[in-house]
């Protein structure tokens, strides 16, 4: 039991908040830290994860092939990352849909994978339908990705309710595409505003960074870019994943004026709500 890995589902409810980017970055970060990692793209029909890692042309077998038994074992379908030997990807099928897989089958696959790897990261599709149910079926833990927007927070709250009902614990929060100065001006939800609703353990806060989009398009995760602020934030999240007690995330200390401004902004924010 002790050498069993952890299955962590990266989910959000709303689309476009950065689940796939997070999965790719956290996976690469964990691999860089010397862990054996497998990333599973459970978004059947809308395959993305391989692109973000720059591995599209290496796909021979996919998730549905593994589940249908079209390849000898899951190992045959795993794609090794360009940069790290200990990072593998199981791509999803592009020409099938979410009904091609059943929750019990995903559960069995996750059991197999966690026997062979330290971390199994599941990239969950948006929504709360079949794809979501499949993705969480085999998960032990969850990272809920959200943006500081009311719609993303509302959807995250719904997802957390469903994850709690499925006995997934711990559920941790990753606040993505955060703009500290905009939040300070009160034009965006602050960390406190988000936490007031979701009330989850915050595993990290990734600032908005144009480099992330660029690096995703190039197929090179931002976590490996030493100059990227987002990359730094992802590395902190990775540290917290490996050792939850160690590098507690500390918010930057605002000055006196910005503190006063923030007090007003929180009030304004809740009025507008």
């Amino acid at each position, binding site marked *: 039991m002790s050498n069993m890995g952890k299955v962590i589902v990266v989910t959000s409810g709303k689309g476009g908040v950065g689940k796939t980017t997070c999965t790719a970055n956290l996976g690469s970060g964990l691999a860089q830290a010397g862990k054996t990692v497998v990333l599973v793209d459970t978004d059947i029909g809308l395959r993305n994860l391989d692109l973000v890692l720059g591995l599209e042309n290496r796909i021979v077998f996919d998730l549905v092939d593994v589940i249908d038994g079209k390849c000898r074992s899951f190992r045959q379908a795993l794609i090794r990352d360009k940069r790290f030997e200990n990072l593998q990807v199981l791509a999803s099928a592009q020409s099938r849909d979410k009904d091609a897989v059943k929750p019990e089958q995903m559960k069995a696959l996750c059991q197999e994978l966690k026997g062979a790897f330290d971390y199994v990261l599941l990239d969950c599709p948006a929504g709360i339908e079949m794809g979501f149910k499949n993705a969480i079926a085999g998960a032990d833990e969850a990272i809920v990705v959200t943006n500081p927007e009311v719609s993303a927070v509302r959807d995250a709250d719904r997802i957390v309710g469903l994850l709690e009902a*499925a006995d997934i614990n711990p559920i941790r929060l990753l606040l993505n595409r955060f703009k500290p100065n905009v939040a300070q001006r009160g034009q965006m939800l602050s960390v406190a505003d988000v936490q007031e609703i979701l009330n989850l353990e915050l595993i990290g806060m990734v600032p908005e960074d144009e480099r992330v989009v660029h690096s995703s398009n190039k197929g090179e995760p931002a976590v490996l870019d030493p100059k990227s602020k987002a990359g730094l934030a992802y590395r902190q999240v990775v540290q917290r994943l490996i050792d939850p007690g160690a590098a507690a995330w500390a918010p930057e200390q605002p000055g006196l004026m910005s503190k006063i401004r923030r007090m007003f902004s929180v009030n304004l924010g809740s009025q507008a709500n």
Partner: protein
Amino acid sequence: MTQILSMPPDGVTLKGTRHGLLVCVREDVDFDQAIEQIKEKLANPFLTQEPGGQLDAKRISLDLGWRELSSDSFTRLREALGEVELAGVLSTSLQTRTVAESFGLKAIIGRLGLAHHQGRRLRQEQKERAEAEKEAPSAAEQPPAETPLAETPPAAAPPPDADQEQEATLYIKRTLRSGQKALYPGNIVLWGDLNPGSELEAEGDVLVLGTVRGRIHAGCNGNAEAQIYCQSLHPTVLRIADGIWTGDLKETGLKQLPAAVKVSCAKDLLRFETSR
């Protein structure tokens, strides 16, 4: 008594309804365990065998929530129930309803299980049992026929009077998140937040000890006497009987929101009183 107040850890809860016994099966419980628990619960000697009664253990309805059952699992469930007759199935899952209908059963869209419904009748029975045990410590050893249940009105009796209704309270100690809804034919006490997108619906009063951002409907059966009390009310939709408030600060006569308020209903308008 504590057992009644806290959330039951069981995956299966029984609820006495006008149409008979409703067995609520939580979705997060393993299916095999659920079957075992149903059998266990139905073997409870406090359930009467009176045909058509609220607690008739020989004819039950099932609340399966969003659990998706294949026809194989459904066959297993029916086999496990043995002689117990299934009156109908309550579920939010289309698949489960379709399967149930293919077995010739009545299937309705709905869900009560999430709120861990404890039927009013069942609660009253538990309370009386607890009181009787206090009076006679050896009550547990007496045969079922002599238990306090025999003294309670028969199952087909008219609904409990107003006093009893006020006592029936659902106690929830957690946060209700978006998409979660608690319905109860009595009062609701929520010790936690009511997040945006969640709902409370009670025939009686509603008391929320956390932050209110979700919707509340008190006195949902038309009881205009019902009241809502909350510690931190944010703009949302509150309803008491036919009165509706849609989050407009001006209508409340309060200086600001969020506020701690007691809300009552007069002539279809909600009245707000600060309670500090």
